[in-house]
């Protein structure tokens, strides 16, 4: 799956619009993921996952920063996320199915905060982008 020029431009536009709220979107994405897909909590036994958790806020910020980084280097996501990819392969080993769940929740956050932004075309591009990120992060698993 390849990101076309228009996919890239849609993704950049989304992250440009999100701007400084990326951190907040990141935390809300995690909050939604833990609520909708409780099995994802198994990767965070060391976190307080209660409402307003500082752990979730901090981690949401990291997740958002990675997505922003990928969007800013959209021509070479593998390069931009190489270290993160190593981390997921060697240490975190999050089962690949979970990246789709995170992606779904991120789309829901964007949809609920910026419905006008998420036209069908932008939705398609963002979904592709999130898949690409997941693919990069699991690329070195075996």
């Amino acid at each position, binding site marked *: 799956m390849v990101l076309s020029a228009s996919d890239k431009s849609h993704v950049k536009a989304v992250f440009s619009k999100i701007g400084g709220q990326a951190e907040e979107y990141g935390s*809300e994405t995690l*909050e*939604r993921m833990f*609520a*909708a*897909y409780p099995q994802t909590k198994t990767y965070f036994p060391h976190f307080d996952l209660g409402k307003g958790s500082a752990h979730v806020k901090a981690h949401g910020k990291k997740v958002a920063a990675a997505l922003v980084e990928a969007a800013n280097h959209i021509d070479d996501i593998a390069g931009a996320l190489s270290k993160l990819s190593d981390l997921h392969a060697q240490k975190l080993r999050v089962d690949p199915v979970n990246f789709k769940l995170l992606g*779904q*929740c991120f*789309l*829901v956050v964007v*949809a*609920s*905060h910026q*419905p006008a932004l*998420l*036209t*069908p*075309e932008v*939705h*398609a591009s963002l*979904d592709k982008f999130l898949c690409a990120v997941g693919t990069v992060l699991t690329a070195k698993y075996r």
Partner: protein
Amino acid sequence: MVHWSAEEKQLIAGLWAKVNVEECGAEALARLLIVYPWTQRFFASFGNLSGPTAIVGNPKVRAHGKKVLTSFGDAIKNLDNLKVTYSKLSELHCDKLHVDPENFRLLGDILIIVLAAHFTKDFTPTCQATWQKLVGVVAHALAHKYH
């Protein structure tokens, strides 16, 4: 059998009461065909699906979207009896339509995003969680008679 708490039933019924089935159904199906273009394989008879604008404006897509979401409404009315309610529909999707059940999951996820865009902050994490459970259960019921 799936258990639904009183809160979950309320979150489902409460939101559903405000859904415009025709609009929402049309949008969900159109987005399915746009975001996951391989799903167009089931709709060769629908005419022009050449791009997002064509798909969104296609009257057959709109009509079929309404049909699909109306059926979803039947599921909501029969939450405690879903497998039986969807028994014939499941057989149809397997034997006549030959639809891979993965497509039900894809449509379910798209529906969630359409609802999120429509209801914005009212589509809380708890609300989403309930609806993700619902679309999962509906997809499972539709796949139940596959053989």
